């Protein structure tokens, strides 16, 4: 087990290194540089000042040297300074993480709980009304663009039932402290989390339903029934435990995709999270911030993948440690 963890760690680090190098080369291979963008944004800048800025950011050195410097800094946990905010990228990311985490965790957990419940209940009657509803729901969840669903909700809720705030994370007058603030944030969280959760709800309900149906056809279920266990016990004790496994795996593996979904949802609802930071940095060509966010989200995905894998091994002892 220890050996496995160690080899996973090495693999993970190699992946991170590859991600950093590729992103760095890609960003710097692109035509145009941030100084031009800054110059454009500030309404023109003379050549001398541009050259000075390039020297200041180290953009005038050869690419391999820049890469070496960057790697050395990343190894020490320094992601550089944002061109736009003039703040360390790591603290920018740190500032935005809680908002995204709140959004993603709420929507994923809610979707997971509701989705598996619906999926499991519907598996009792594979052709019943609930099953059909889940089919429709999952088709809609897969086919409708997230941003469109979100905006339809905005239209509906802003004009017809003006209940929930449709933009931002806090009331403008909020002082950002105390219990009142927590309630305020939760209140603002409802719509974005609901929108993001819808898509995952569709997937989880469909997946858990399929997994339940699969498990219910297995021999050991027939055995359990044959030895006279109550239907309730067979269903919730024998079948459910096994059916939940694939759903848990997907839950972990999808964490990276959830971050991608967060970009769109955060944009629709002006949610001040990591996704919007990434989006705005791309528009501003804020290279250090883009590289930082790419690195950060890759690391999150790698860690989540490995954790899922390890959990899976713990839950299901049949999977041999190889």
């Amino acid at each position, binding site marked *: 087990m220890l050996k496995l963890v160690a080899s996973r760690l090495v693999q993970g680090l190699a992946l991170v290194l590859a991600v950093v190098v590729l992103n760095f080369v890609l960003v710097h291979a692109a035509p145009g540089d941030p100084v031009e963008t800054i110059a454009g944004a500030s309404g023109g800048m003379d050549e001398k000042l541009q050259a000075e800025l390039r020297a200041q950011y180290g953009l005038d050195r050869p690419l391999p040297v820049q890469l070496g410097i960057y790697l050395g800094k990343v190894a020490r946990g320094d992601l550089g300074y944002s061109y736009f905010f003039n703040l360390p990228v790591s603290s920018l990311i740190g500032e935005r993480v809680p908002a995204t985490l709140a959004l993603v965790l709420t929507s994923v957990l809610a979707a997971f709980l509701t989705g598996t419940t619906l999926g499991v209940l519907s598996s009792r009657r594979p052709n019943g009304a609930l099953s059909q509803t889940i089919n429709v729901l999952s088709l809609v969840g897969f*086919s409708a663009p997230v*941003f469109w669903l979100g905006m339809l909700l905005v239209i509906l809720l802003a004009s017809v039932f003006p209940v929930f705030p449709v933009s931002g994370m806090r009331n403008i007058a909020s002082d950002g402290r105390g219990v009142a603030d927590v309630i305020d944030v939760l209140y603002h969280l409802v719509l974005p989390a609901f929108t993001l959760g819808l898509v995952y709800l569709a997937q989880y309900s469909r997946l858990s339903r399929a997994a339940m149906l699969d498990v219910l056809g297995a021999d050991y279920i027939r055995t359990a029934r044959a030895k006279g266990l109550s239907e309730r016990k067979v269903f919730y004790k024998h079948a459910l435990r096994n059916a939940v496994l694939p759903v848990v795996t997907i839950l972990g593996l999808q964490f990276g995709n959830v971050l*991608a979904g967060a*970009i*769109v949802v955060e944009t629709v609802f002006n949610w001040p999270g990591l996704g919007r930071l*990434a989006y705005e940095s791309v528009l501003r060509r804020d290279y250090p911030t883009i590289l930082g966010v790419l690195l950060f*989200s890759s690391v999150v995905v790698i860690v989540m*993948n490995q954790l899922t894998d390890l959990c899976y091994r713990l839950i299901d002892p049949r999977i041999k440690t190889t």
Partner: protein
Amino acid sequence: MNASDQPEGPWAEALRMFARNPSAIAGMLMLSVVLLVTLAGPWLVGADPFEIIAAPMTPPFSDEAILGTDYLGRDVLTTLVYGGRATLLVGAVAALLSVSIGITLGALAGYYGGRVDAVLMRVTEFFQVLPALLFAMVVVTLFSPTLLTITLAIGIVSWTGTARLTRAEFMKYRNLEFVRAERAIGASHARILWRVILPNALPPLIVSATLAIGSAILFEAGLSFLGLGDQNRMSWGLMIGASRQYVLSCWWAVAFPGAAIFVTVLAVSLIGDGLNDALNPKLRER
């Protein structure tokens, strides 16, 4: 060699199954309507989707514009027609690209195994770890947003699922008797890969390719919604993104293009589900 030459081969049976599946037929009908509108549309509406044809925010079902105009006075119906062309083109080509990369790499990894497999799987892992949308955003922004770069970006970030599926299929077949027989009579690796195993592995891959079209369309819509698409080509996502700030005063400029995306992807998913039922009979009960 091909099974479809025989009168009642598995492919013919699958086709019959597909034709008897009501939701698959509904999907085909919906897709036909979408294709018809986008292809024949230019003869029905104006020539330029960016042209201002009426007062801004004309509501739908008015005389000047059936589906209304956006905040600049551009016709929403014309947007649907021309936007569909860009979206469908990018979706189809990007899906083709992603499926080609996925099948090639997955087949090589699954067939050769060993070191080839290890290297290719590391590459796949690498692309799975990259945040797809963010990475595509970066590529598109850095290398000028044209239909070509968008298509390439989507193709490059979305092939990993197909690769894993193909790999599993090829691993399943590579040591079966009919493959070993081919090897014994001296068939080349290329022949075994593409002429012997691939046709057998095709059914699940066709389903995955169909679903890939749906995801590529959604991906393109997402990029253009964020304003990272080609600004000179009207697309459904672009219209929604542009009208985002005016959504409360002019819902139709958001609702209709979004509905178009929804209907198109829904059609493709229904077809994919139908193909799945027809081609993978073992899963039929589900």
